[in-house]
């Protein structure tokens, strides 16, 4: 048994590995970011373990990659509360993994961009908003002492390469770890497509520069506009719209049945339209507008719905 004959291996003092968690949405390039870090650590002589997800999560789902490096690394996954640096390519994904961050000493780096999944837009009742509810940048900055939030996509777009937002974040990550800028740049140059090396190095420099001159208070005040997103509003579910059908005028053309986005209508045995799923009706008026015979009228309750979500926020 190797260990039994070499107790020194086991008894040796253990330095604690560094833990970096990179998260985002499928297709954003989480794996690319973690690859740069893993290769860099490898080149610096550390043992590196990088654990990622394949399969299902690729399809627009939540994606994460654990990178651990140090003298000796056992577990490929980072225990909850032990993440030293959390890099989020999307705001809500960053919040999802925040409980994994070391609450006192951990660093949170996040792009403020919002990717709203179709699943969050299921409630289409009048006045309902997306379920993309999350804490605002300033709220999070209050709670997490070492947090860096920025519009990395915006920064990369200004450079003319929107896809280099990841590299901007790498620039910020570089300021949180002890490797030299030159080492980072050399690994980035190796791993990005040759045509984009220049742009990526620029994005990296921009991100690093931003982090080194980071001014908490100005970022916080700049982010005041990014308020908590409008809450997914379910309290008007009972407030149903009513569809009135004048049976005598209906000739059973089937247009309203085909076009109803919520599939509330059906032709009955007499080939006259009837409402079969009143609970699904969102009052979109599509049937009323399309009926060639004016056989349908939609009655929606008069409520002071605002014209935009921003107005709505002001109302609250």
């Amino acid at each position, binding site marked *: *048994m190797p260990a039994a004959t070499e107790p020194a291996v*086991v008894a040796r003092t253990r330095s604690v590995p560094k833990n970096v968690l990179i998260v985002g949405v499928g297709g954003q390039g989480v794996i690319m970011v973690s690859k740069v870090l*893993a290769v860099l650590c490898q080149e610096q002589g*550390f*043992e590196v373990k990088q654990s990622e997800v*394949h399969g299902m999560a690729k399809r627009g789902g939540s994606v994460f990659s654990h990178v651990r490096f140090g003298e000796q690394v*056992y577990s490929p996954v980072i225990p909850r509360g032990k993440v030293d640096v959390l890099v989020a390519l999307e705001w809500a994904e960053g919040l999802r993994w*925040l409980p994994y961050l070391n609450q006192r000493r951990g660093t949170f780096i996040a792009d403020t961009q919002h990717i709203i999944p179709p699943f969050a837009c299921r409630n289409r009742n009048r006045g309902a908003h997306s379920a993309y*509810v999350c804490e605002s940048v300033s709220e999070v900055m209050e709670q997490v002492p070492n947090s860096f939030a920025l519009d990395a996509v915006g920064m990369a777009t200004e450079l003319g390469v929107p896809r280099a937002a990841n590299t901007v974040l790498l620039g910020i990550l570089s300021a949180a770890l002890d490797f030299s800028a030159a080492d980072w740049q050399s690994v980035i140059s190796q791993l990005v497509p040759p045509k984009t090396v220049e742009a990526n190095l620029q994005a990296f420099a921009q991100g690093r520069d931003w982090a080194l001159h980071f001014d908490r208070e100005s970022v916080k005040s700049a982010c005041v506009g990014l308020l908590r997103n409008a809450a997914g509003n379910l309290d008007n579910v009972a407030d149903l719209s009513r569809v009135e059908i004048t049976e005598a005028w209906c000739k059973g053309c089937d247009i309203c049945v085909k076009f109803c986005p919520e599939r509330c209508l059906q032709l009955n045995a007499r080939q006259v339209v009837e409402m079969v799923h009143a609970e699904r009706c969102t009052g979109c008026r599509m049937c009323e507008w399309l009926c060639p015979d004016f056989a349908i009228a939609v009655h*929606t309750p008069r409520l002071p719905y605002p014209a935009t979500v921003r107005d709505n926020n002001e109302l609250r």
Partner: protein
Amino acid sequence: MTTVLQMTTIHQAAVRQSDDACKVGKHAAGQRDIRPMLGNEAIARGVWEAGVKVATAYPGTPSTEILENIARYPAADLVAQWGTNEKVALDVAIGASFVGVRAFVCMKHVGLNVAYDSLMSVTYIGVNGALVLAVCDDPGIHSSQNEQDSRLLARIAMVPVLEPADAQEALDFTRIAFEISEQFDTPVMVRSTTRLSHTRSRVRVGQRITVEDKGFIESTAKNVMVPAHARLRHPLLLEREQKLTEYFNTSPLNQQDAGSSHYGIITAGISYSYVKEVVPEAQVLKLAVTWPLPSGLLREFCDRVERVLVVEELEPVIEDELRKMGIAVEGKSLFPRVGEFSPAVIQTGLVKAGLLTADTTEAAYEPSQLARPPVLCAGCPHTSSYMVLRSVNARVAGDIGCYTLASIEPLDAVDTCVAMGCSIANAVGMAKADNQTRPIVATIGDSTFLHAGIPPLIDAVYNKADITVMILDNHTVAMTGGQDYAGTGITLRGEKTERVNFRDLVTSIGVKWVRQVDSYNLAQMHKALQEAIRFKGVAVLISDRPCVIDPIRIRGAVYQITAATCSGCQSCMNLGCPSLVWTDEMIDGHHKVTIDTSTCMGCSLCAQVCPSDAIHLPGLQ
């Protein structure tokens, strides 16, 4: 942080001979032989190094990358080919073993169920050329339909199971599995799990060995499993089990970590890394083999410690064996029988055992969580298939593939999903029960259809079932990342080959109604589906459009929405397309919709469903 560090020598297994460099770093001598590798890449390397001649598999997460990586080694060295399903793949490997070359097959855990019939026989036959199976379990169900423990299946088949704990061991154990196979005349299983397969860590690689080609060995009594022969082989299996137990009792692959704890932990595979993370000072016996168990070694270890804990994911395989040996152990009373382990799970179990004190760190800041289930991609050709199925109010028997994602809102159009190829026969059962008013439709992907969908289709025709079968032909094995298969006419190594013609295949079975429709043409899809449903008997509708992501991205002109004409009716939002997003502008309480131009693939489905013609190509409004 220091830069050049010493590497542990723990993982030097017996197979590593040239092991001079024990330092890694920019200037270390052996660096070019040390590479970062996924567990799956390391298994592939082990296969190549072991001098294997024939390797085959059917793709399945988390095992897919193994054969893909094997195919990166020269064709002159070994054959690497996709099988039609896991049983076919195993049978191909068995054939190669019969004629005396080393053979390898890999699969995910549920793939082993498909191949199991052959495994149960070949275990009686044994091997001529070594035969090794890599089986990747999925504790935590990251991308599967269950979390079965393959070690139990291996035990029934009396096939030894090696369990590597990291990528280095994945390589080493795979290599040695071939030696064990030939030495003991048995197929050998190397068991991985998702976490091991998909973790990248450093691996010291070796060179390919040359293996003698043994040729076919004439022996009817060994190679032909008829009752008379099988009766003679069964006792030999029991003898083999005994010999393997003795071998593993002294095998240097099992590893003992001396420690200061009064208790001892017995573990195997990836769980070892979690144990070491939480209690580095504990006495640990890490088993390289989980069947047959090295009883002598176990007894010796258990005698030495005051208290024995077994840490193993999923089923209590090691624990139960220890109980049978009369040893008092704790295992599943502390560590769960479901889900994937993590350092936190080990921590909790040890706290429960009274061996650690509970972590008293303050409560973490827990912001709100957004539900973000995986979705069908923008431009996915499956979307329209499920749109039309919803519109005819079909009862849909689903199958395994990306299209299972159509079971969640807003598509919400898949009623059942069991296992590979089950949809068609499930639909037959539903139809035969004769109590459903809704039309019954089976939906099955092209590769899944060839994998296990043909026998049930024959059954449907033969038994005169009144069902519609929709073959979702996206010209690839999409779910696992766009592999080639018999339906693409291209081999794993990129050569052209015969391509299955689905229409001819289905017609030859006796299906009288077959039609192929462009998935992107919603109106035609809708019409064809209605006709298929009206047809009495088995109707097959082939929904035909290549996957937009794999193997190549197919991006058309990007659509846009004129906000002024959008009525906020939400028709397009029914597609569940990730490129369609709500704007801040509202009309009568409803959000207007816009298209994310950076992700739109230009499939035109949203333009087809928009009742107000607000969606169009730029400049065409």
